[in-house]
């Protein structure tokens, strides 16, 4: 049972990680605590769901449309809620408020659209196949989720550290002003960052929607709260930190349910955050040298 629960924890944790990646990316590059990330995740899931229910698209296409949907909402959010603030050089606090407002609007729109119903992907969107070996029960969907998350993380790291676009993103993260002098167009970079962040959230939305059998307008809110813990624990702006902290939170949560009580899971997750902050205020991977690679200090 321990192995089974660890597996459950890894699956949940990797999706937390995927969700938190986009969250931490925007924080790292733009220094924005994007409180609307949960609603972008939800809209990604909606995009995937409507694609499946209206056009009967298969699983991989649904994931792609979820990514596209999340990416688009995220870019629109940047244009309407953050860009005007950036132009005026408004303090970072303004963008938090702006993102809360945007999040409320996106939530109400979704609520109106769905009449508050809980929706779900059709049962046949993904075949329910479970493998049993060494007493471990693994669902095919769980394996696919882990594979997608690994692919996304490797892809993102490659993009950031091995391509010219990634170099430009990192340059903007260090200093938007200096990168402008070097001929980089920060508008194009922000477009990319917000699109990637939204797309990651959208993919997480579709995956969570399928694996947990539930798509509704509030689905992003509990995740946003956990993503907070994940990115603070992992070190603000750190990509490996987000993934590892995501896994850690997933495992802690799962083991608490398994061996203590389901009611204690959140309490333990937040206690872990508290303890880690006492010992390492910058988070597990937030040491000055670690973060600087993706973010400005």
């Amino acid at each position, binding site marked *: *049972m321990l192995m*089974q*629960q660890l597996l*459950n*924890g890894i*699956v*949940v944790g990797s999706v937390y990680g995927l969700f938190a990646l986009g969250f931490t990316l925007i924080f790292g590059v733009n220094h924005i605590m994007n409180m609307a990330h949960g609603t972008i995740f939800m809209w990604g899931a909606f995009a995937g769901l409507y694609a499946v229910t209206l056009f009967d698209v298969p699983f991989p296409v649904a994931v792609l449309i979820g990514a596209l949907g999340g990416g688009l909402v995220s870019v629109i959010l940047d244009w309407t809620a953050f860009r005007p603030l950036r132009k005026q050089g408004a303090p970072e606090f303004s963008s938090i408020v702006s993102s809360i407002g945007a999040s409320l609007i996106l939530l109400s729109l979704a*609520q109106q659209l769905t*009449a*508050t*119903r*809980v929706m*779900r992907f059709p*049962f046949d969107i993904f075949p*329910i196949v*479970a493998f049993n070996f060494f007493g471990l*029960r693994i*669902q095919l969907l769980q394996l696919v989720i882990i594979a997608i998350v690994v692919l996304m993380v490797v892809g993102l790291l490659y993009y950031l550290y091995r391509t010219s676009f990634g170099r430009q993103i990192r340059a903007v993260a260090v200093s938007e002003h200096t990168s402008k002098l070097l001929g980089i167009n920060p508008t194009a970079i922000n477009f990319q960052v917000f699109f990637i962040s939204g797309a990651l959230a959208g993919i997480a939305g579709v995956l*969570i929607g399928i*694996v*947990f*059998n*539930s798509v*509704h307008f*509030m*689905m992003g*809110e*509990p995740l946003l709260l956990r993503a907070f813990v994940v990115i603070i624990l992992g070190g603000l702006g750190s990509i490996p930190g987000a993934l590892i902290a995501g896994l850690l939170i997933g495992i802690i*949560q*799962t*083991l608490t*349910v*398994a061996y203590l*009580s*389901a*009611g204690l899971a*959140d309490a333990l997750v937040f206690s872990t955050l508290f303890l880690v902050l006492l010992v390492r205020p910058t988070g597990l991977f937030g040491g000055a040298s670690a973060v600087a690679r993706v973010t400005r200090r």
Partner: protein
Amino acid sequence: MKLLRRTLLAGSVAMLAMTAFAAPGSAENIKIGVMNALTGAYAFGGVPIQNGMKLAIKEANESGVLGDTKIDVIEADSAGDKGQTITLVSKFAQSDNVLMIIGPTTSLEATGGAPVANELKVPMFVIGSSKAILDAGPYSMKVQSVGTDIMGHLSKYAVEKLGVKKVSLVFDRANDGFVGQKDAFKKLLGDAGVEIVSEEGILSSDTDFLALATKLAGQDIDAFFVAAPAEVGSNVLLQARQGGVPTNVLFLGPSTFGSDSFIETAGGASEGAFVVSDYFVGDQGELNQKFVKAYTDAYGNGPDNWAAMGYALATLAVQSIKEAGPNPDREKVKDAMNALRDQPTVIGNHTWSMDEGRNPHYGAAVLTVKDGKFELAQ
């Protein structure tokens, strides 16, 4: 400039005063405040309840049960939130000047609003099942029976007909009503000699029940019981089956699962589930048949347990206004509300009544899902 501003100000005050005096609720009409959790985690119950309530009031207005007097509905969203409910009770009582309030949706909200309603002396008839609603005072009343009442039917059936001996309990730990149902069920089963293997508190905002599923799959149990909103509970059931809980481990659920959304969300996993329900949509009673038709005509889909509960509550509220006699005031409605006995209703065994402690009773039925539909369990 100053003069213009002053004129504008005076003008708007005058306009405001005129609208206030010319408000549609003429002297003849009665105002009722209707609030439910139309948004938030309990909206899945709140929306059909609100629909059921509005239907009952519309029917009362059309049938002229109150003579020439019509009821004006003032709607609001309690959002599943205690603080919002308290604010709305004050608003309804003090600025809207309603005769009575119906709703909110959950015990959680109602236990916040009930003390305020008693303080402001405005009758408040709510959905919840918690006893604290009655304890708050004579102005607050509830339509649902206490957890023990309805759970008694389920535990009796589980022990005597299904032969259940070991059970695990899963419940929404943030909702007083669900905790009450779990506690009642636990006590009843304990008294019948059934072993409670584990108790698991979840939240209605949770969607990940994989760990819980694996835990249940590893237990030696005959059945598991889930007290949570239908969509959440069906998700627990579905993930439990996917996580390896075999179908011979039975699923037992309280009245919240007596809705089609349970079968829709859980799909094939709902097959063979046992649910105690205070309402059965297939009930052939004349009152229910009429209600099902009217509800379907009005909203395009059939009523569920919640819609029926809202309809039953609003019908009782209208009845208490009627019993309060001509020119009803809050005091008279409160007395009439407390005196309601043996009222015809669409829920339970068709008669809604109260005992001396003002606890409602209306019977219940145990339903089971067969071929994707609810039917009475034999």
